[in-house]
């Protein structure tokens, strides 16, 4: 009698446990992406003229650096998960000079690749609705007619005693860069590690074309200049190699 009772209790518990487990693994979870900023082989420090002009004389300092990450897709065994309303303004003016995105409610799956854009897609870029971090009253708004700045870099170039302002505002639909990263190991939601990316600010001036900041101290609405910098920022993000 006793035996039967404890056996049925035990199997009951087991069954509930199994049910809870099955329930949990079928629940959506969180995927985290972390972007750590560097400047070439140096750490990112704001407001300090510690970096050499990659294409010429002088040292430069960074006052502001931010850019849009959008349209994040996670590629899994069951299919592609498109993160809804994924417009994130990545900025690094914090103690760890990093930016983290927490994607909540990601369907259970094993994901082997992630794609996203630097910039904003044409539809959102032509709209004044506030979605995600898109805000027509923010500093990334350029003006009503041309949409958003995709990337903003402001600072100064200091050469002997002249200080030149540096203003790089890059936008225009054609300069959205979509990047694909094949992950070294597949990930599932709620795994303990974030996906780690490195953002190299210097690549903006050294990526495909080396820029002399003295010769090109600002990039705004000139399409060729904007294309040149966009070609460079297309190379600035990489997966962080794990030790």
């Amino acid at each position, binding site marked *: 009698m006793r035996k039967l009772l404890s056996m049925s209790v035990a199997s009951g518990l087991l069954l509930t446990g199994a049910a809870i487990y099955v329930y949990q693994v079928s629940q959506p979870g969180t995927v985290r992406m972390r972007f750590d900023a560097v400047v070439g082989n140096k750490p990112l420090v704001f407001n300090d003229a510690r970096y050499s002009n990659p294409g010429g004389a002088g040292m430069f300092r960074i*006052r502001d650096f931010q850019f849009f990450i959008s349209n994040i897709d996670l590629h899994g065994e069951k299919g592609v998960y498109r993160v809804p309303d994924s417009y994130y303004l990545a900025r690094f003016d914090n103690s760890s000079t990093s930016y983290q995105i927490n994607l909540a409610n990601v369907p259970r799956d094993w994901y082997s690749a992630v794609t996203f854009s630097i910039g904003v897609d044409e539809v959102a870029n032509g709209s004044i*609705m*506030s979605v995600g971090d898109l805000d027509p*009253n*923010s500093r990334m*708004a350029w003006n009503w007619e041309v949409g958003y700045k995709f990337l903003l870099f402001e600072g100064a170039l200091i050469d002997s005693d002249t200080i030149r302002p540096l203003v790089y505002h890059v936008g225009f639909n054609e300069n959205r860069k979509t990047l694909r990263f094949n992950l070294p190991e597949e990930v599932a939601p709620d795994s303990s590690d974030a996906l780690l990316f490195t953002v190299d600010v210097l690549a903006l001036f050294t990526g495909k074309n080396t820029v002399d900041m003295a010769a090109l101290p600002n990039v*705004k609405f000139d399409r060729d200049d904007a294309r040149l910098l966009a070609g460079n920022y297309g190379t600035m993000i990489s997966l962080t190699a794990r030790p």
Partner: protein
Amino acid sequence: MESGGFGSINKSIAMLSLCGVMLIAIIYGFVAYIEPKPTPLQGFTAPFVFGKFRVPVDNPLTQEAVQLGRRLFYDKQLSGDNTVSCSTCHLQHLAFTDGKARSVGVSGKTLDFNSMSLANLMWGPRHFFWNGRVDSLEEQALAPIQDPNEMAQNLDDLIDELEADDVYPGLFRSAYGKISAENIARALATFERTLISADSKYDQYLRGELKLSAEEELGRKLFMAHPDVKVSLRGGNCIDCHSQFLTSGFNAQFDGFSNNGLDTEALLNPGLQFTTGQVTDRGKFKVPTLRNIALTAPYMHDGRFTTLEQVLDHYNEGIRVSDSLSPLIMEADNQPQDAVNIRISLNLNEEEKRAVIAFLHTLTDHSFITEDKFSNPFDADTMPDA
């Protein structure tokens, strides 16, 4: 015996629990009776181009809170000697500024700062005062009341005064419950959140109801563009700091604070550095809303400019260089820059400067400065103006 004993214990337990339940019911009924049930504010709207707004969960917009806040805002009892109310320095017909270069309160001493317009406070920087030293309107509201130069009022004394008043106990009861410093702050903040200016000529233009004049339209275009000589785009670069629809500073972090070149390094006021402790923030100030700007002279944190012409002259040719000066101001130029001798100037011509000023005038909202709901309630009822 045994069972009988159990029986009577059971009975008394039953009785006791019945009493308990009744007591709880009575207390609940009482609490429910005294707990205020304020009415959510009806028909509260704002233009979608202003973007999202947040109202603190512990201080929802209710009719009772707005009514109470409005009365407090206009009540001189809030100052130590009953001579100054919030509205002394924030007058509706001046879009809630006071027309002085720097404000004067109960002490008669001129304050360090120019009064700020109170419009659309739910948008733009979520940091208040010129140097951003407080993070909420609730926190802000208690500052002038206690400041010895502004209203010089002890909060405990104020609560006693309000409790002795004929009207306030009832108003507080229906809005929040009891009279406390916290609830005074909440009510003032709630009233301020309703001060929305969204019916200027510019708003009507945004809604497609009218066309701007050719001059205003030129001014709007200049306001909204950072100049780029390479593509022959002329601009006044105002949008670099004053957002396109709100015309105030940006709301993310401290992005809405900037150094717009008023002073040289040696004369720089600490500004935002007071709040963040960062040297790089020295001389940065809150980028104010430009809505109703034609009504809110004198201009800047110390009221140094008396006209919009002077403001435009400042941006066009009066910039003083310092380390935290915005690179966007240094760089913005409508003429090709000399790479060696940088002379900071927008190089707008007279016609363009006038056009920007004409655009600034389209930000005046007459319904805002005449709206009954924002006006002095003491004028309307028979309450003596203490």
